């Protein structure tokens, strides 16, 4: 906590303080927005204008005159790009693949995080701090670096995992078919366990002890208390973290892009929607189509967030 000066603290504690409607009138009318001005200008420049510009771009198409060798012109084509995106089965396939994969991976990740949080809930306090810190290390490692680390562990040459498997007489590959998904899923799970465990731990700690003290005196075993009392009382945080994870999976980009470096035949350029957008923009050079795809993805994300928001709000109230 910060070291507040004593009078300030006293004032903070005073019950009369509230968001000050009396600050209104002429004083606040322009002063509030004035303090917000740097942010508002920046917001305009980095949110509103780009989204608007991307939208106007997406209403155009690049057309080349002559037999495809002449100079290209950008012409207005209305919603043609959007119609193509909506009918683009590869784009929707990448979205479906990402969501399905995300749902499976998040279930495993949250399951393990929940298990660890429950286990830590029953261990001595000193051990808890140590385990928490250690399990959080993967979270603090930059995603690019953790992808590189696992890439070397998955690589056909020099991987200690393959060494160990070979010694055990097994021949495995980390890419190809379902293994690609398992490898990517393992990476994301590894990154996310500690962070989700902290969140679940925090909401477990917030539960009043009396909730299960009685059950314990009645002789209920720990696993029974966990299953019938602890878990039902923290479904809110599970749904919430699951929802945010799923939305972030929809934007999956860096990890599969980097993995593609050693497994290009397993991870296509349209493996995830963001990879498809990146490819369309910078490899194919079709900015207009990529802009339309970005906006469709943004809308799908927004709808998903909204649906989840409504659902969880109902659940938690």
């Amino acid at each position, binding site marked *: 906590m910060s070291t507040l000066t004593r009078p300030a603290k006293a004032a903070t504690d005073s019950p009369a303080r509230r968001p000050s409607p009396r600050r209104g009138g002429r004083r606040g009318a322009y002063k509030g927005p004035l303090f917000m001005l740097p*942010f508002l200008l920046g917001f305009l420049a980095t949110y509103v204008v780009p989204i608007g*510009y991307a939208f106007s*771009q997406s209403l155009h198409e690049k057309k080349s005159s002559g037999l495809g060798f002449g100079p290209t012109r950008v012409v207005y084509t209305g919603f043609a790009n959007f119609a193509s995106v909506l009918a683009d089965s590869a784009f929707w396939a990448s979205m479906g693949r990402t969501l399905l994969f995300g749902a499976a991976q998040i279930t495993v990740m949250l399951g393990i995080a929940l298990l660890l949080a429950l286990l830590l809930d029953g261990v001595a306090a000193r051990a808890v701090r140590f385990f928490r810190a250690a*399990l959080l290390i993967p979270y603090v490692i930059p995603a690019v670096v953790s992808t590189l680390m696992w890439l070397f562990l998955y690589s056909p040459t020099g991987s200690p995992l393959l*060494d160990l498997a070979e010694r055990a007489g097994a021949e495995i590959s980390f890419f190809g078919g379902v293994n690609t998904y398992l490898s990517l899923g393992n990476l994301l799970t590894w990154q996310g366990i500690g962070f989700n465990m902290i969140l679940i731990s925090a909401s477990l700690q917030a539960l009043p002890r009396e909730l299960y003290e009685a059950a314990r005196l009645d002789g209920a075993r720990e696993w029974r208390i966990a299953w019938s009392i602890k878990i039902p009382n923290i479904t809110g945080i599970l749904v919430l973290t699951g929802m945010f994870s799923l939305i972030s999976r929809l*934007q999956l980009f860096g990890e599969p892009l980097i993995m593609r470096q050693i497994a290009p035949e397993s991870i296509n350029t349209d493996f995830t929607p963001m990879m498809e957008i990146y490819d369309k*923009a910078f490899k194919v050079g079709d900015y207009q189509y990529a802009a339309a795809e970005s906006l469709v*993805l943004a809308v799908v994300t927004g709808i998903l967030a909204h649906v989840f928001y409504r659902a969880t709000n109902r659940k938690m109230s």
Partner: protein
Amino acid sequence: MSSVASGGGVRPSRRAVVLTTGLLVVFLLYSLAPTWFLIVSATKNQTDLYSTFGLWFSTNHLGDNLHDIATYHDGVFLRWLGNSVLYSTLGAAGSTLISLAAGYGLSKFDFRGRGAFFAVIVGASLLPSTLLAFPLYLVFSEIGLTNTIWSVLIPYFINPFGVYLGKVYADSSVPTELMEAARIDGAGDLRVFASIALPLMRTGGITIFMLEFINIWNNFFLPLFMLNGERTFPVTLGLYSWLQQAQTARDMNTLVLTGSLLSIVPLAIFMFTLQKYWRSGILMGSLK
């Protein structure tokens, strides 16, 4: 989990303790092993990397690797590290100041459309920044800003979630009575903000700074979209470009591995210094 846990009562059975500890240790190893692999690998040369067991040391070549990495391409890696420090520090400082000011304005003044502003900010903080990268690229390339440090810094400055946190901290730590008192003493609004509100919001400021610093240090896709000259890369993008080269030109794996380890060090130092704010920061960041 076990059916033998007899006796009931509060004390867990010996078997339950063993099982609990065992499971925790398994996941502990799972969490730490890849980082351990990275540390071990950074001490190996190219031959040992492929011919010796990955989870244990061989002859120590860490010095050679560090020398290689510092000299390769005129020390471009050190430049990348410097760029990352620059982007993270400037980006986080700028966004913290802008967020605190906006959060203060939103919290302490009543004005038309305040609720709408707040709703937009909450909505925007839910929008994944990945989605903005390409629209931003379109605009910035139109005005010739791509491939400059501003093309990454300007978007870093604008952090709706930071504004949200700024408002929360202003609500809870800046007493309106104190502002009134200062005004009666003749202080102007800017002075009230700078010398009374800002110091009181210090904890919030550090939390916003820390979250943003880590975000920027880890960021990959915005620089990937915006920058194409090696000299402006942050370390994440630099490592990726090395990995790409490794597929086509010389085998750069020792450099990639040693560089990866080095790229964590400044971040680790930063978080160690601010560890007081670390946990509350995570819990706050999770709201995003």
